[in-house]
């Protein structure tokens, strides 16, 4: 099996931090894939072909993990030995829960009114909310090194992701 000691950031020659240079990540990812992708080894020995598939798989996994802010934060916390407890810890601040309920009501309303544009507006609002939580993550992880707080924000973002999924499903259902 693959023997990789580097963390995902090191693989792409990037600093291990939440703030990330997306252009640099994309470039490094493409450079790594240019070296390891199975297309480069179509005429190689089977040991090299297997190795290539494992590396290309690993590079894809690492890239996907770093690309998304939530999974990047979750991964950074994991490196610190912190479990984000997304399945077990469902305690949320009261104001966040209130906000949740309002959003869900708005989704239900738009869905029963068959109003796609209202759903799309809600989706934009979710995206804005997620972006503001993500900048909080940057502060909590890179500046304050307050990992328990960061774990709390990851749980909130996970919630937001679920709501976003719900909206997208509703839009899809209305379109079909």
């Amino acid at each position, binding site marked *: 099996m693959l*023997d990789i000691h580097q963390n995902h950031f090191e*693989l*792409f*020659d990037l600093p291990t931090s939440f703030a990330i240079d997306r252009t640099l990540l*994309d470039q*490094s990812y*493409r*450079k*790594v*894939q*240019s*070296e*390891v*992708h*199975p*297309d*480069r080894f*179509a*005429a*190689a*020995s*089977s*040991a*090299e072909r297997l*190795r*290539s*598939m494992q*590396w*290309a*798989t690993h590079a*894809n*996994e690492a*890239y*996907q993990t770093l690309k998304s802010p939530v999974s990047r934060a979750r991964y950074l916390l994991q490196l610190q030995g912190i479990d984000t407890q997304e399945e077990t810890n469902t305690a949320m601040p009261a104001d966040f829960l209130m906000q949740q309920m309002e959003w869900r009501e708005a989704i239900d309303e738009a869905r029963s009114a068959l109003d796609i544009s209202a759903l799309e507006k809600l989706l934009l609002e979710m995206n804005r909310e997620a972006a503001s939580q993500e900048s909080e993550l940057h502060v909590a992880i890179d500046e304050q090194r307050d990992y328990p707080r960061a774990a709390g924000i990851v749980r909130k973002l996970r919630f937001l992701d679920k709501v976003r999924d719900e909206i*997208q499903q509703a839009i*899809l259902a209305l*379109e*079909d």
Partner: protein
Amino acid sequence: MALLQISEPGKSAVPHQHRLAVGIDLGTTNSLVATVRSGMSVVLHDEEGHALLPSVVHYLPSGVEVGYTAQAQQSHDPQNTIVSVKRFMGRGVHDIADIGHYPYRFVDAPGMLQLSTVAGIKNPVEISAEILKSLKARAEKSLGGELAGAVITVPAYFDDAQRQATKDAAKLAGLNVLRLLNEPTAAAVAYGLDNASEGVFVIYDLGGGTFDISILRLSKGVFEVLATNGDSALGGDDFDRRIFCWMLEKSQVSPIGPEDTRLLLTKAREAKEQLTDHAETRITCMLSNNELIDITLDSATFNELTQHLVSKTLAPTRKALRDAGIGIEDVQGVVMVGGSTRMPQIQHAVAEYFKQEPLTNLDPDKVVALGAAIQANVLAGNKNDNELLLLDVIPLSLGLETMGGLTEKVISRNSTIPVARAQEFTTFKDGQTAMSIHVVQGERELVSDCRSLARFELRGIPPMAAGAARIRVAFQVDADGLLSVSAREQTSGAEAHIVVKPSYGLSDDAITSMLQSSFSHAEEDKQARALREAQVEAERLLEAIGAALHQDGALLDDSERNALEAKMTELRTAMTGSDVRAITSSMEALNHASETFAGRRMDASIKQALTGHKLDEIKV
């Protein structure tokens, strides 16, 4: 930029001869073969100068015709003349929605349907293999040698069963498949390399029987597929069928037989093609009962008849854009692929949706084959500079059935391949020692709405309390988009392990027997063939490792290098004999011995790529 290698005098670089490689577009209506010649991708023609080979196979009591000669028999012998076989690849009778419209004698079979012909029962894999054999013969004749390999294109939206069936058809035709390549990606390669484009491109591919939409980002020779969507049962054939139904309705003819159906469908196709640059077209033909059909179809009526088909392509387009996170304003260009995109109503609809005129400067019939040839040339090792890389995705999510017939997604659609993911499951009952694993593909929540890929059982789980066992199910999708699944129980050191390749009903044995029956070799011929194949493979392996040693030999110390070279010598010795088993076991030993070396080369090349350091500056 890659540096040129200069070898020491008297020490030649690894000998490298140009390997003959082709790209094949195995289409619903037409198929093509292309190759790279003096740096240019060109379509290969048959002796009469045709670029296209109609994807039509005509079975005779003894023998088979393919292409134009077969197409000429369509109306006379519809039951034995198979057109659009691609629609049946990896499909059962229940999967074909409009099965009553076809003039064939279908035979239901587990997994994949079969067709009864005058030459016996044939399955879609065998029928497709006839088309591929014909293209292979054309290429070998035109290039003057045996093909080292081929890239075969498939619709991006093909599922695992359809891909596996395509690969098997190529195997049956005696082709070495270098890669299955998604058609839109192939088109993007042909298009992108021609135009040296950068940015986000949409490939709108409406073929004879399938529709695909792909969103790609092109950047410095890297083609990254961001999302793909489509409909594997929507294409130009459906437009023909709309005209056909309109003709029946309009002319009030009595129920017609298979010959007349075929005739009218051909007339419908001709009318559709006429309407590409005419405002109206007259359809006349005589049915077998001497009834005369003489009607005129204008483009306004045609547009009305097919409006819903045109809009059916826009729903997957919207979904793909959303999955890619791309807005219409981000799209640099829309590339049109497939003969059906010649229809004016399609071009209008696309232009209106994307608010820009689509790009049509490459022949939509040829662009896929041209792109596949470029990729085949790279994969065959004829091109060493790293200027082209394709990063493709899986079109449909892969998952497992859980309690209550629900799907648990393991790998979601549009994941870049190769990709692997594992999920842990546990037992439901106390003392449970076996677990049934059902692999499915699709986006729906209910297993019954998804496509079933494989079922297998994991046995030998040590009996323990419910929920205590830990079963890890791992999915791996390779660069062809094909899946393998393994399951492993991993508590208390006890392990059970099984690997399945999903299949559409044809077992490996069935493939082998089809292969054998397709060669009329005597027993000794078969042995000679096996020996020759082993020798060729051994040569390839020695060449590959030799090239690696030549390039990166410094990554091994003397004793490691000696050990590896000893295995190479062993294989060379085995190759001179006629014992196939000795050759294969020496190959295995050499492969095993080269694993460390392979790993170090990979690590070193990544470091080199990222830091710009030369290989010999890197400590390993």
